[in-house]
């Protein structure tokens, strides 16, 4: 169910990016897609009632180096969280570049409407 909602969010973003005529709205659509994917990644690693994936002394058997089974069964998966952090940084970079290109284009054309920004054809 949650996955379906997440996919719906992705499709809304895709729709917005493909159909809208305003440059800024297209950028917003792309970012909604990006957030939907990030949300999906987080949900992959999450479990209900899970605990933070940080091992403390009580869960680690110092002699054998084994981690308690209870920890493994209840902690959330930390890897997707690391992936999402990286993906957020990347999307921040591309968002900054996209918005700055929008601003420069607005300075040149005086409009955000992509139907009027059509010098390249053929």
């Amino acid at each position, binding site marked *: 169910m949650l996955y379906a909602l997440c996919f719906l969010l992705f499709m809304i973003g895709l729709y917005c990016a493909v159909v809208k005529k305003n440059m800024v709205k297209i950028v917003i659509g792309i970012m909604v897609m990006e957030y939907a994917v990030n949300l999906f990644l987080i949900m992959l690693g999450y479990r209900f009632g899970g605990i933070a994936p940080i091992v403390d002394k009580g869960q680690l058997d110092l002699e054998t180096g084994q981690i308690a089974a209870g920890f493994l069964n209840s902690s959330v998966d930390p890897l997707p969280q690391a992936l999402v952090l*990286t993906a957020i940084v*990347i999307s921040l970079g*591309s968002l900054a570049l996209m918005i700055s290109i929008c601003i420069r284009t607005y300075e040149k054309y005086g409009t955000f409407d992509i139907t009027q920004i059509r*010098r*390249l054809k053929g």
Partner: protein
Amino acid sequence: MIVPLPAFVAIPLGTAFLLPVFAKRGKAVATVLANLATISLLVLAIASIGQTRVYEIGKWSIPLGINLVLDGLSSLLLLAISVVSAAAMLFSIRYMEQYTAKAKFLCLFLLMVAGMNGVALSGDIFNLFVFLEIASLASYALVGFGCEHEELEASFKYMVLGSIGSIFILFAVALVYGNTGSLNMAYISKAIQSSGLNRGLTFALALFVVGFGLKAALVPFHAWLPDAHPSAPAPISAMLSGILIKTLGVYALVRVVFNIFGISVSMGWLLIALGLLSMVAGAFLAIGQWDFKRLLAYSSISQLGYVVLGIGLGGLIIARDGNLAWASLAILGGLFHLVNHAVYKSLLFLTSGSVQMSTGTRQMKQMGGLAEKLPVTRATCTVASAAVAGIPPFSGFWSKLILVIAAIQAHFYWVAAIIVFVSLCTLIMYLKVQRYVFLGELPENLQEIKENRGSMLVAMVSLACLCVLMGLLLTPCLRSSILDPAVQVLTDGVLYSANVIGM
């Protein structure tokens, strides 16, 4: 000599971050440093030929840490990347004097090279995505580098489609992780072999095809390329058309399809269909163009079709358990065409830059008779045109010949016929370039122009020499050390995982 694999990423990345320090005054220093970086990468790439190694970053063993994998296919790609980037960098020493902020240009250029090298070496699927984004972001900024009307428009278009492609790839990576529990290519491949494809993985494969297809500008996804490639400064057009679409698009797609998911009959047909569609549509659209660089850009779409077609044909034969020798011949044709196209299309874009710098226009109708005024540009452009059209001793002929032989051997006679037909269309479009740019009447306003000198000529002449000599790659000695290992990686398919884990 054992080449440290992280150097391929570390050298351009480190230099890139060093360069903005030299602002206006240190422009010469920045240029020399950037050239040193690309040339040292070329040396490293040549030194790494024929090696197969796995490097574990930070000594974390394979399923835990990120790894870099150097195999035949990667080293072929690294070689092509470093040749094209060294030539484009030489060319831009003089060409980029027209623009301001040269140090920033060099910085973005090297970031793009770092990203591409990372994509070629990465053995981890999320790491591949990160490097792909580094290269893409640098290329979006470089396309809009001129900050004029057309450049900004092209850059925005490229960026929207490119970002959608990247998000599709990230979504696919998430789906693969959810279904196999690993991000390492070798482990994913092993997990897929033991459990088979379920619905999630099939969806992920479809997303990968669309995402990498957008990056490679294969025909249904090609809308951004004819705008973006001509709008960029000439050395960047050479990089984008020559190597970026191949590394981010074709290489990554092929790596995922062949080595991770394993080739299937339907996937082989899909690649063949994409290849044929790109070839035919690209060629027809190119003939009608009057903008010099736009014609070259459409021709890139068409030529990339050959690469995908060759690899797809090989994959189809493998998936049908056909004759392995036929399959490897088709894949050899595709990969050889990839390298050839990298050399001659970057040369063509450099000559178009030289013409544009001298005449100040890209419209072929406003040119003519430049043969006398620009003798070296004319000569190198003719060599490259002959190579792309497939006229005998030049490089393009050999790769197209191999593709035709492979198609006939595998009884795909109609494919062979289409290859020859598109080759004819290519000949027509390059005759058009020769006729309208270099022959005919010299317009009055162009009487005063002079040939460009210095590094631009060095870059063009050295690439032209390569165009003539590339046929030598087929001699048994060079073939067994450069091309055959690359073909081997693809024909081995999912054995890749065993090879990587075993090392």
